Every structure is written in structure tokens, then in C-alpha cells.
């Protein structure tokens, strides 16, 4: 391997940081406007009260909690997938990991906003913090809402560090190619990184340990989000299958979001040489696997409810199968199961375009799934006197749209200021890097792989 192989890679991947197209400003303007509208809508809700949202008795969890669960699910795109691929040392992960890890950090941050937006008095959100009040009363640690606080913050902290650590060598690379103020900023972010063997060994050890630690945390986060529902004796919520069902759904929607992000980056930043059809094919296979898992979980859950024939649960069941929510339910089934299965099970249609179409379906379908878990159950509680309806309001829709725009905005800004593909990992994966002829006698590749 020599420099002629690695310098063009660095040049290609650093170029978006130094060149700005008109599209960048256009995206910034469009998404920024929608985010601003969302901020105004939230301000309106704060001023006039939570009643401007569609939340009414008995549906006190509605669109905001739908978005909360959806975004937490999307966050499983990154750190979880990246950690798994790192641990199994999958070579094709190298251009994918950072694209994925960024999704986790931003989706988790957006998701964590929703419990606060959902509050009537959001300025009291700090009551969830684990510290005693004036009368030495601590938060109720038995409550799933307190579990959410710990799980989301642990995952967010771990994911930010998991994203940041491998960026340090790339910050050093950008520092060496910059001048003036930009050089000072990237120099501070690089923290004096030089690339000594000690630094590389420590970084790789840290990434291995964090990959091991973050995996169970990622699984726990969505399991705990599912506990928000399954710990309540609401029809079709109080289910032991909810933990794995939510985790599978989260990974499913996360992979779909990752495919969409990669396809957009590939086109916008001209990364065709790095984000190859192979990457989409592999992620498409993963998406197909999760599609089948999702179908299996839905079937298991529905069959158990139907066979049990418990009246309160059957009310919710029929409301979704052939009642008011049936159009949404069957759209969900088509988007989450029929479309991805049809496209991704055929190698000829498992192309980049095919994966993008299937992923669009999955993102829509998984959002509907979150909605259909929450609203039909709350509008059909055990006793008919507590049945009700739910009507979405413009305030809720505006805030929802703003979070999608916010995600695009944050992702665009990140790709503008940080190499969206890990340059050093990509260089380390070049075929010529696999030459082990210089290993000392008795060493093996496995010993030298740090993994």
C-alpha cells in the first residue's frame, strides 16, 4: 500500500467540508423554515395550553408519544448496527458506520424531546432527574418513566462517545488540511491526535469495549420504551412479547432510515465510489430479515389476542382489523411486510432503487405501527364508558413535520462539517492493508486484528 492509494480517498471525503453547493443552502432554508414553524407551534401550545393538541380523555398519549417511540426506534439504526458490524469485523461496515451512528445521536435527541413536548408544564421536566426534592423525596424509581430517563440518557451518552471517538483521527486529518480559524477549530476537536501506535491501539481497544457495552444498552432502551406500554393493563399493551417486538421493530425501522440516509448522501456528495451497491445489497438483506421477524412478531401477537378472545382486547383487535383504524392497519401491513418482502427477496430488485423504495415503505409503515399501538388501545379501554376518539390537530402535525425536517437539517449540517465516512477506517480496510507478511514469526492475522 502506498500514499497514492490513500490520498485520493482523503481528498474525496474531505471535499464536502471545503466546497459548498447551492443545494446545501436550499436544504438549510427549507428544513430551517419547517423547524421554525414547529417551534412556533410548540410556543403556541405552551401559551394556550396542551388542549390545542388533540389529546383528550381518554387518549392522553397520542401523536407526540407516537413520534417518541418512532424516533427512539429510528435511533437503533446506528450504534446498534455499527457495534454489531464492528464486533464481527465485517469489512463492508467501514463506509457505513458513521452514517449510521449519526442517525442514532440525532434521532435519539429528537425522540427525547417528545416526552417534554408532551408535558403540559414542560418546565417541570427536571422532576425526572435523579435528585431529591426540597423534602428529600426522590423520583419514583419504580416508574417506567424514570427507567426511560436512565435508559435514554445512557444510550445517548454512549452513542455520542461511540460516534465521537472514531472522529478524532479524521478531525486531525482535516486540521492538517485547514488554515486559519477552521484549523483552530478542528485542532481543538482533534485534541492533539498524532496517530502514534499507542493512540491507535488505545482507540481500537476503546471501540471494542464500547461496542460490547453499547449492544445490551441499545436493546435495553427499546425494551424499556416498550415497558412504558406493557406495564399498564391497557388492552393489547399488557403483553410479554412487547420487549422483543419493539426491539425488532426498532432495528427494522433503523435499517430503513440508514438506507435512505446512505442513498441521499451517495447522490448529494457524489460518494458512488464508497457507498457501493454491495452495501445496499447487504443492508437490504438485513432489512428483509427484520421484515420477516416483524411479520412473525405481529402474527404471534395478533394470534394470541384473537385466540384468547378477551372482550376488551377484541374490541381493539377488531377496531384495527376491520374498524375505524383498519385502513391504517392494512397500509402498515403492506408497507412493512408486503412491499419489502416483494422487493428485497428478489436479487434482481434488491438494487439501490429497490432498497430505497422498500425503506420508504418501512419508515411510513413503522410510524403507522407506533400510532396503531397507542391510539386504538387508549380509545378502547376495558369499560365502554371510557371509550373515545382522537383527532389530530394542526399543532401536532406541524411539530411532527418539524422533527422530520430537524433530522434532515442536523444530518445535512453534520455532513457539511465532519467527514461522513470514516476516512481512517476506510483506508485501513483497503485490500493491500491485509498484507501480513511483515508480522513477526509465529503471529497470526487473528492476533493482529485486535478483534
Amino acid at each position, binding site marked *: 500500500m502506498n500514499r497514492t492509494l490513500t490520498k485520493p480517498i482523503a481528498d474525496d471525503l474531505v471535499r464536502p467540508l471545503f466546497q459548498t453547493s447551492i443545494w446545501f443552502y436550499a436544504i438549510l432554508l427549507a428544513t430551517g423554515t419547517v423547524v421554525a414553524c414547529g417551534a412556533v407551534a410548540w410556543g403556541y401550545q405552551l401559551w394556550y395550553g396542551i388542549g390545542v393538541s388533540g389529546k383528550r380523555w381518554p387518549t392522553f398519549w397520542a401523536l407526540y408519544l407516537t413520534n417518541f417511540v418512532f424516533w427512539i426506534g429510528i435511533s437503533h439504526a446506528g450504534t446498534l448496527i455499527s457495534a454489531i458490524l464492528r464486533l464481527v469485523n465485517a469489512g463492508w461496515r467501514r463506509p457505513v458506520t458513521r452514517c449510521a451512528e449519526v442517525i442514532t445521536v440525532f434521532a435519539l435527541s429528537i425522540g427525547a424531546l417528545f416526552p417534554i413536548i408532551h408535558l403540559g408544564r414542560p418546565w417541570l421536566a427536571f422532576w425526572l432527574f435523579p435528585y431529591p426534592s426540597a423534602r428529600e423525596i426522590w423520583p419514583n424509581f419504580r416508574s417506567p418513566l424514570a427507567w426511560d430517563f436512565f435508559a435514554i440518557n445512557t444510550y445517548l451518552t*454512549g452513542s455520542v462517545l461511540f460516534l465521537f471517538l472514531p472522529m478524532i483521527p479524521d478531525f486531525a486529518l482535516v486540521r492538517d488540511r485547514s488554515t486559519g480559524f477552521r484549523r483552530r477549530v478542528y485542532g481543538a476537536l482533534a485534541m492533539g491526535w498524532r496517530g502514534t*501506535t499507542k493512540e491507535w491501539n488505545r482507540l481500537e481497544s476503546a471501540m471494542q469495549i464500547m461496542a460490547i*457495552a453499547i449492544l445490551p444498552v441499545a436493546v435495553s432502551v427499546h425494551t424499556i420504551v416498550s415497558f412504558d406500554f406493557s406495564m399498564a393493563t391497557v388492552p393489547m399493551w399488557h403483553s410479554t412479547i412487547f420487549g422483543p417486538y419493539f426491539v425488532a421493530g426498532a432495528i427494522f425501522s433503523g435499517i430503513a432510515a440508514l438506507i435512505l440516509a446512505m442513498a441521499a448522501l451517495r447522490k448529494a456528495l457524489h460518494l458512488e465510489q464508497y457507498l457501493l451497491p454491495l452495501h445496499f445489497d447487504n443492508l437490504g438483506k438485513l432489512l428483509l430479515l427484520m421484515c420477516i421477524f416483524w411479520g412473525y412478531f405481529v402474527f404471534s401477537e395478533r394470534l394470541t389476542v384473537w385466540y384468547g378472545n378477551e372482550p376488551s382486547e377484541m374490541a381493539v383487535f377488531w377496531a384495527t382489523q376491520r374498524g375505524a383504524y383498519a385502513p391504517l392497519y392494512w397500509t402498515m401491513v403492506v408497507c412493512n411486510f408486503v412491499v419489502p418482502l416483494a422487493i428485497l427477496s428478489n436479487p434482481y430488485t434488491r438494487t439501490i432503487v429497490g432498497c430505497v423504495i422498500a425503506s420508504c415503505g418501512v419508515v411510513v409503515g413503522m410510524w403507522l405501527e407506533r400510532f396503531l399501538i397507542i391510539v386504538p388501545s387508549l380509545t378502547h379501554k376495558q369499560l365502554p364508558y371510557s371509550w373515545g376518539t382522537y383527532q389530530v390537530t394542526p399543532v401536532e402535525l406541524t411539530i411532527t413535520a418539524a422533527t422530520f425536517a430537524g433530522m434532515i437539517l442536523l444530518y445535512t449540517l453534520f455532513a457539511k462539517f465532519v467527514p461522513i465516512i470514516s476516512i481512517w477506517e476506510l483506508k485501513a480496510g483497503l485490500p493491500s492493508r491485509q498484507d501480513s507478511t511483515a508480522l513477526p514469526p509465529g503471529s497470526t492475522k487473528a492476533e493482529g486484528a485486535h478483534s
Partner: protein
Amino acid sequence: MKAVYGLYNDPHVAQQAVENLRAAGVADADITVISSEPFDHFEFGHRDAKTVMPWVAVAAGAVGLALTYYLLGASQRSWPLVTSGMPIVPMWSNMIIIFEMTMLSAIIATVITLFVTASLPRRGGKMYDPEVSDGYILVGVENPADAARLEPALAIGGGRVKRT
């Protein structure tokens, strides 16, 4: 700071430069290798590979577990309110927070250990060449006793030798 170093395109040549420095009597600890990517498949990439990081992570996890166990129990006993018929200190639900704090402690300890053992963050003053970012591998010695004696050991395979 004085330094003498060579810049190489090829990791095989960089490996040879390390061998030459050893043959010239330079202690292994005094040889610095800097690159823009890890070289796991070369011997020089395994210098300083031993680390206590996994043990620190495990120990921090254990400390996090113990502290959270104590905090939860103490806070729940300080106002012994019965909730949903659960015990005052319910282990089933407490295990969730204990688990999260155990993992968080391990993760944070890992990152702190990385920064401490790799001496990050660091200001300038150490041997470095920005050409490393272009893919060159730097092999050199900081504050050598006799830089002129080491130059032949580094001048191999088209490598460029520099002194500061």
C-alpha cells in the same frame, strides 16, 4: 524539541526502518511510529498494545452497580411509600436502573482511560509531520543523542529523512 524521522509510503519499508533503528541501538520505547491509519498487520502496529482498559471498564461497571444499588435502596427507604403493592425496595424494577448505570459507568471509564493512557488532549510540542495525513508513515526518534548516526538507518526504500 529535536527529532529525526523518516517518512515512508510503504508500511513494509516503515517496518524495516523500525528494525534498523533497533539495530542501531535505539530502545524500543524511544522509537515513535505515526500514521493516519492503524496497521494491525504489521509488527510495529502492535507496540504498546497492552492495556488495562478492559479491567478498568469492568471495575468501573462494578462500582457503578454498587453505588446505584445503594442509592436506589437508600432513597426508597428514606420515604417508605408502598407503590402498587411492590416491596419498598423492589429488586425487579431496580435492576433496570442498576443495569443502565453499570453500563454507563463502564463506558465513561473506558473513554477516560483512553484519554489518560493515550495522553489526550495534548498541545503541540511533540514530533509530528502534517504529511502523515496524506498517507505517509513517520518513523523517528525524539531528542536523539546522535541524530546523524540514525539518519542512515532511516534513509531506506525511498523514505525522506528530516531533522527538526
